[in-house]
């Protein structure tokens, strides 16, 4: 009945196969492993490329929007924080001060915007292909790196032009790793939960709107009253933004409290993100 059962399965059309691997499928609460992420690098790269590309398909200005978005926010900040509230920035020119905050924020916002819905928008892959699911949120984070690159480059140029660029700017890659880890933890949690609880999709835009005011993106925490400051310091982004300002702006003083709080929260969020995502991953095709 089966004339050919030997290993010579190669045909002109189909490349030859390596010997079959065994896969055991059993009921389990968790099946993805951290090391799978490394094996999945190729598909993550393709998905990230797609996430970035489709953002600007059939758009005449394309990636130029990467520049306009932070510029519009910066203009808004000038009116609200500088013009109306007249926030002090410890002697740093306001444009430099705000652009550093905005470069962290631009990445965080872009990642969360695509990342939260990343599993849901890939529902066809989730339901019909064995595509590794952690690839979806990770790809959305990678696809957001250009948002960071454009704003951070702007922040560095403006800081250098106004003579406040600190040599500590060489530490910025560490700052980026920190922000990526923090963002990944949060995106891991919300993208997995959003599959079950679509409430997250409704909550996200307004949480991001509130979030930009609860983090020192456009103002300095030094000015806040102690109770307000304590609340803002609990925001995990606060420590990252403060550290970035310290890295990029000479003469900027930071206190250790928000940095330590944020580092601890980052570590907790990274573990929580993986825990929640890998736990909910096994039921994603059922829930979606």
């Amino acid at each position, binding site marked *: 009945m089966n004339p050919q059962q030997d290993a010579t399965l190669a045909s002109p059309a189909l490349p*030859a*196969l390596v010997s079959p691997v065994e*896969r055991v499928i059993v009921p389990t609460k968790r099946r993805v492993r951290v090391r799978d992420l490394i094996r999945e690098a190729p*598909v993550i790269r*393709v998905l990230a490329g797609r996430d970035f590309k489709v953002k600007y*398909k059939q758009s005449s200005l394309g990636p130029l929007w990467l520049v306009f978005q932070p510029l519009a926010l910066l203009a808004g900040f000038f009116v609200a924080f500088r013009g109306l509230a007249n926030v002090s920035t410890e002697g740093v020119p306001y444009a430099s001060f705000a652009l550093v905050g905005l470069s962290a924020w631009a990445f965080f916002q872009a990642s969360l915007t695509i990342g939260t819905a990343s599993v849901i928008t890939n529902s066809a892959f989730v339901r019909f292909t*064995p595509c590794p699911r952690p690839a979806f949120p990770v790809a959305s984070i990678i696809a957001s790196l250009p948002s960071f690159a454009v704003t951070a480059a702007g922040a560095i140029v403006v800081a250098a032009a106004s003579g406040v660029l600190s040599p500590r700017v060489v530490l910025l890659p560490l700052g980026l790793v920190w922000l990526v880890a923090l963002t990944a933890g949060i995106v891991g949690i919300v993208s997995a939960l959003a599959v079950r609880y679509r409430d997250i999709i409704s909550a996200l835009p307004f949480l991001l709107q509130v979030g930009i005011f609860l983090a020192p993106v456009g103002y300095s925490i030094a000015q806040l009253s102690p109770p307000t400051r304590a609340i803002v310091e609990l925001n995990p982004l606060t420590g990252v933004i403060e550290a970035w300002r310290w890295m990029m702006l000479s003469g900027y003083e930071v206190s250790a409290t928000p940095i330590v709080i944020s580092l601890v929260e980052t570590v907790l969020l990274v573990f929580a993100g993986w825990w929640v995502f890998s736990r909910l991953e096994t039921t994603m095709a059922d829930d979606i």
Partner: protein
Amino acid sequence: MAGLDGNGPRPVAVAASGLGKDFRLGEHRNLRITARRLLRRRDELAMFRALSGVNLTAYRGESIGLVGTNGSGKSTLLQILAGTVVPTHGMMRVYGRVMPLLAVGQGFHPELTGRENVTLFASSLGIPRQVIESQMDAVTAFAELERHMDTPVKRFSSGMTSRLSFSVAMQFPADIYIFDEVLAVVDGEFQERCLEAIKSLHREGRTVVFVSHHADQVADVCERVVWLENGSVRSEGPTGEILPAYEHAHDVAHD
């Protein structure tokens, strides 16, 4: 050595034992459910057993047809085999790489071009970049979309999308090919070519798992048929024996 079976030294491709899957019925979440939970009036969750106690062996190089009415568990079984759904009971062993074609045209992004979508879809199956690039011309030729591969898929007709989808599945190497009711959406001439291509996969010694509501297609492709009913295997055996029995039961039920 991939598992040996008592009937002889035939290598096994897929082996399921006691395989089961429960789904929750009804809307999983809405405001009413939330309110009842908060009031501690927790509804008993209604469960639906889509598969129960399925024992099944597919040997390497075999072409197996799954038949059964809607809701008999065919698709759930294939989803578990493809690795998208995790079973709630039992075990399944799979030897080799699976190429699942569970739905035609699903997973293509409308804004991406045909070529970009082939790369995306094939990468999602874990196919290495070099293989994708080397097979791109074969995919294009099989789908007869030479002039359209750089056009966004949203401008494709549904037939073109189906052809591309099918072509992706046929032109990349795997040990086990799954076709879940995929020929229903393509037109006559392409359908014939797909059937021929599926049969040639089988001739090359690859394992084929084939689901179709068309008994003649099952008869054409499959040497053995598994008849699922209410999530369990009702009977299995050579196509010539099982398919007429299934068709008879089906006709009787409908008359």
